[in-house]
């Protein structure tokens, strides 16, 4: 194993995520219903589903933020029930709001998040410098995040989410509202990062983005209704586009409880 791999926490687990019968109920409502799946190391894994299908609940459980009602999940080698704090330390997270502090500078955001994730001063300084160089942000380290264009914020937020070399990175609708060139460049950045050995779980409402993923899971009503590569799923459900696939799985299958699906 090379040096780079070792520095990724829990880098020797073949399955970065293992979920068995993972379940979450809120009162009588089952948000996630006995889900089992694995995510492999280095994989870009897409999580799709209608609004209210249970994606957010599933992600919150995998991040150690929400205790499952039943079942278990190991994330980067740690049990989400017994070691949620270790899970939180071992993952990176980026949401559509980019999770950056708008009134802090680029450098301050790097120091802040690196500090939160317990990076050593020397490592943080080095990783921060490398990030600035890679993103070609020399000279604007001391600008406030609020003054930067959306596309830059997005790249910075992503780079900060992987700064502590987490074993798993969650990207929650990371490309909302950006222009087409920025969106494609951002996906290039995601895939390039995955090639370095990072594992990535991404949610999106853009069906064309699902095609960048190695495998995708489509959720309906708390269940995984399909899980495979985009190509295999399309042939399995006998459709020729991701949009048709999504429609077939989320709409043609649901009949009875249409009200809850609104």
């Amino acid at each position, binding site marked *: 194993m090379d040096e780079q791999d070792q520095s990724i926490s829990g880098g020797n687990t073949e399955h970065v995520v293992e979920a068995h019968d993972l379940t979450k109920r809120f009162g009588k409502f089952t948000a996630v219903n006995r889900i089992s799946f694995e995510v492999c190391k280095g994989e870009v894994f897409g999580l799709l589903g209608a609004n209210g299908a249970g994606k957010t609940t599933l992600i919150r459980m995998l991040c150690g933020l929400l205790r499952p009602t039943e079942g278990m999940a190991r994330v980067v080698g740690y049990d989400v029930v017994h070691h949620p704090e270790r899970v939180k330390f071992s993952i990176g997270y980026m949401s559509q709001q980019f999770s950056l502090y708008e009134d802090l500078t680029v450098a301050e955001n790097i120091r802040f998040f690196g500090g939160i994730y317990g990076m050593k001063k020397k490592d943080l300084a080095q990783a921060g410098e490398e990030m600035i160089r890679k993103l070609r942000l020399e000279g604007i380290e001391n600008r406030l995040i609020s003054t930067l264009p959306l596309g830059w914020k997005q790249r910075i937020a992503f780079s900060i989410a992987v700064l502590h070399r987490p074993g798993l990175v969650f990207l929650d609708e990371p490309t909302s509202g950006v222009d087409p060139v920025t969106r*494609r460049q951002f*996906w290039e950045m995601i895939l390039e990062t995955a*090639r370095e050995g990072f594992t990535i779980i991404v949610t999106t409402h853009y069906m*064309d983005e699902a*095609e*960048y993923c190695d495998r995708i899971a489509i959720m309906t009503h708390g269940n995984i209704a399909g899980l495979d590569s985009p190509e295999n799923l399309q042939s399995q459900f006998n459709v020729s586009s991701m949009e048709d696939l999504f429609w077939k799985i989320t709409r043609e299958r649901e009949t009875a409880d249409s*009200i809850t699906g*609104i």
Partner: protein
Amino acid sequence: MIRIADVTKSFGENKALSEVSLDILDEELFVLIGPDGAGKSTLFRILVTLLLPDKGHVLIKGLDVVKDFWKIRKIMGYMPGTFSLYPDLTVEENLAFYARIFGMSLGENYPLIREVYEQIEPFKNRPAGKLSGGMKQKLALSCALIHRPEVLVLDEPTTGVDAASRKEFWQMLKKIQREGITVIVSTAYMDEASRGDRTCFLHKGKLLKAGTPEEIRESYPFPLYACRSKDNFALLKALRNEPSTASAMLYGKTIHYSPARNDFSVGTFLSDLEGTGNYGPIEYRKTTPSMEDSFAFLSKQ
């Protein structure tokens, strides 16, 4: 017709709209596409007379947005990007309120909104603030339609909405259009660009292109190929290093690649390239540009 002529609007230093000119036809389903900060909401607020342009004119069915704003407000329906109904009024009270401020009874235009409203009617006694996102959206649409406007303006109604619900929303918009209403919708989702009769692309306050989906696709100036190999990243870098390349970008599992010249012999070029790197065999086929390919090209200019 709606005529937007040379409209400019600045907020301090920030030029939100820069000499935008555009005609939207009666009973058209028109899509305004652009990233966050492109100026979509600013243009819409000018259309619905909530903002004054710094320069330029807008005529809506012959009425001027500055002088005739009172008349215009009666013929426009507007659904803003953020939920703007009264959260502590019930579903039914909100609808009755909007009907009444336009001097109408609830029953008058009920047939127009029936299909949308029926989906939220089981919750008519619930405070609007307690509805799910999808239901809020349906209520907001009902309220924007209850006075049967001639022009309906919807600011990013599908943001954050899943692909299947978005498709259903567009089917609903087509039905509203068939009632003789001009429908103008903004969106940041490129896949929705081809759902209207015509589309325009707004970028950094400038209108880059307007036309039918076909016209926009055909405006892509280069031949376009979808290529793939066992190492797309290395191939992408190699393609970008070639002076003959106009554009190379990842597109799902393929690379969308354009040579700068029409008479370029792609087959020879790619098979030569195969020998220079560890890509394995390079598959390629000619493909039709998507709306996104065209817009990506335009925004790089």
